[in-house]
């Protein structure tokens, strides 16, 4: 029971007729990066709101750091840090004043307080801007400040609700560097919701949620393996000879696909170096395509994860494009 930092048992939340979260159960180990992947409106934020005591479950139980999220709210709140989907800073205060407010309501004692504030501000590279009003910050800076604030009080679990939504790629990468550094250095458990595939890839384990239901839960690798094997496309100086060699050596189907040969292997990354080394026919080009989480989501739900949020015209374009890519 105490081995897990987050325990969720048969959690459900209804808003009238609408079932936002439908009988979800999972556990998260300390120090894990746990990703919650699903389209908008799947129930990700509702689940986070229950876990961080902002909302009460209709039924089921949840524990954070061993504390009940309904009956031990204060202890739960002390154990967690949050970065919300929408900004939650006081724009009329400076960066450092926002952090001081946070430190005080989270009971970070005075001697350690200023030191810790400096540490987190330096980590997100906002120390030089600490005395500027938050309203003068850019979107990325605000998110970084929120991240610094979320981890100020040494939380056991840091909740990140779509932490990089609407940020440019560089800023997204920076944010991830901080998160990974934090997890490495302080052993903080990260609970993350996202609908970005590349972001979900960084998680140790991913729960895929759709219409309030948990449809899959595993490591990104295993989830992807579920969909199919890795596809290797190879072009050689003599494709017919090569096809024969592959069939004999690896006991696998080989297809002629244009000027290339394609075949499936179960562990492409490890297979590839060995293959190149020992293959008898001269290789002109070779590529490895692995199933993506997008494929996983499509297989599990019959829909694409991005579908809901793009306009119809754009959706059609994405569809065509995606189909072409898959082929």
């Amino acid at each position, binding site marked *: 029971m105490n081995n897990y930092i987050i325990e969720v048992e048969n959690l459900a939340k209804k808003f009238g007729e609408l079932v936002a979260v439908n009988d979800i159960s999972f556990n998260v180990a300390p120090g894990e990066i746990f990703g919650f992947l699903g389209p908008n409106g799947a129930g990700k934020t509702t689940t986070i709101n229950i876990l*961080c005591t902002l909302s009460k479950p209709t039924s089921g139980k949840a524990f954070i750091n061993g504390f009940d999220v309904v009956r031990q709210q*204060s*202890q739960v709140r002390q154990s967690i840090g949050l970065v919300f989907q929408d*900004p*939650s*800073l006081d724009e009329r205060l400076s960066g450092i004043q926002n952090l001081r407010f*946070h430190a005080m*309501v*989270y009971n970070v004692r005075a001697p350690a307080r200023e030191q810790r504030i400096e540490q987190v501000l330096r980590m997100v590279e906002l120390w030089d801007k600490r005395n500027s009003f938050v309203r003068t910050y850019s979107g990325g800076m605000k998110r970084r400040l929120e991240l610094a604030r979320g981890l100020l009080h040494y939380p056991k679990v840091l909740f990140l609700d779509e932490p990089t939504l609407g940020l440019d790629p560089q800023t997204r990468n920076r944010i991830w560097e901080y998160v990974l550094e934090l997890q490495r250095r302080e052993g903080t458990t990260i609970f993350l919701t996202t609908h970005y595939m590349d972001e979900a890839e960084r998680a140790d384990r991913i729960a895929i949620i759709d219409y309030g239901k948990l449809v899959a839960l595993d490591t990104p690798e295993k989830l992807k393996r579920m969909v199919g094997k890795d596809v290797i496309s190879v072009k050689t100086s003599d494709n017919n000879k090569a096809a024969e060699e592959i069939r004999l050596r690896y006991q696998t189907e080989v297809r002629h696909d244009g000027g290339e040969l394609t075949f499936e292997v179960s562990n492409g990354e490890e297979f590839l170096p060995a293959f190149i080394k020992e293959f008898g026919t001269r290789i002109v080009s070779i590529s490895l395509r692995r199933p993506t989480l997008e494929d996983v989501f499509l297989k599990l739900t019959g829909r694409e994860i991005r579908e809901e949020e793009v306009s119809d015209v754009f959706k059609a374009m994405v569809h065509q494009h995606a189909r072409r890519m898959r082929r």
Partner: protein
Amino acid sequence: MHNLLGVYTIWYRDILRFWHDKARIVSAITFPILFLFVFGSGLSSRMGLLGDGVDFIQFMFPGVIGMSVFMASFMAGVSLVWDRELGFLKEVLVAPVSRVSVVLGKALGSATVATLQGTIILIFAPLIGISFSTLTVLALLPLMFLLAISIGSLGILLATRIKSMEAFQAVMQMLMFPMVFLSGVFFPMQGLPGWMSILAKINPATYGIAPIRQVVLGASLDSSFSINLFGHFMSIWNNVAVIAVFGVVMVLLAMWSFGSQE
């Protein structure tokens, strides 16, 4: 102990924000002063003495103090609605401080700011021929604070139920102006038409502003400025008791409402 720190932190934020907002400080002073000198001076010369050797502008002065305290403290509700709209309230709600502390911190914060604004207006007393001792000022501080925390809690109570800024502002206008106008800021409480007298007497702000006037003007108990409730002239302590009871009820209601809503 930790909750006390929470109350202090939330209070402190309000003070900081007020300090940062220089425009608000300036408008907090100019608006009542404008009222006092334009309105007061204009009418004062025509009306002569109102009784007890007090002319209209002098009569209005403590009322204007009360009015500025009243309006500033109502801002507690506005600030709560803003915090909700701009997301900051979430940061407060997931913090390990009780809902009761949040309400208390907010009410105390806005009451402090409102008292500060009221005190600034006192500086203008010599200009209209009112003089008072340090003791009077010391007596006024708790009176202003009491009015502020009562009205501030009313504002917070409304803000826990009315969640959009537009709706809150509409309700605030609807409530604030009648409450100010019918609280004896601009006219003595005696000799009013019956309906107006009744409305003024069920208005809690009346009992918050009356003791401020009684202290500033040092008026006698049965003067024309006193509130006559069922044939009884309300003393300073009578008025204080009424506004204090109202304040306690409002604070408790606000705490309960905030706790059950958020």
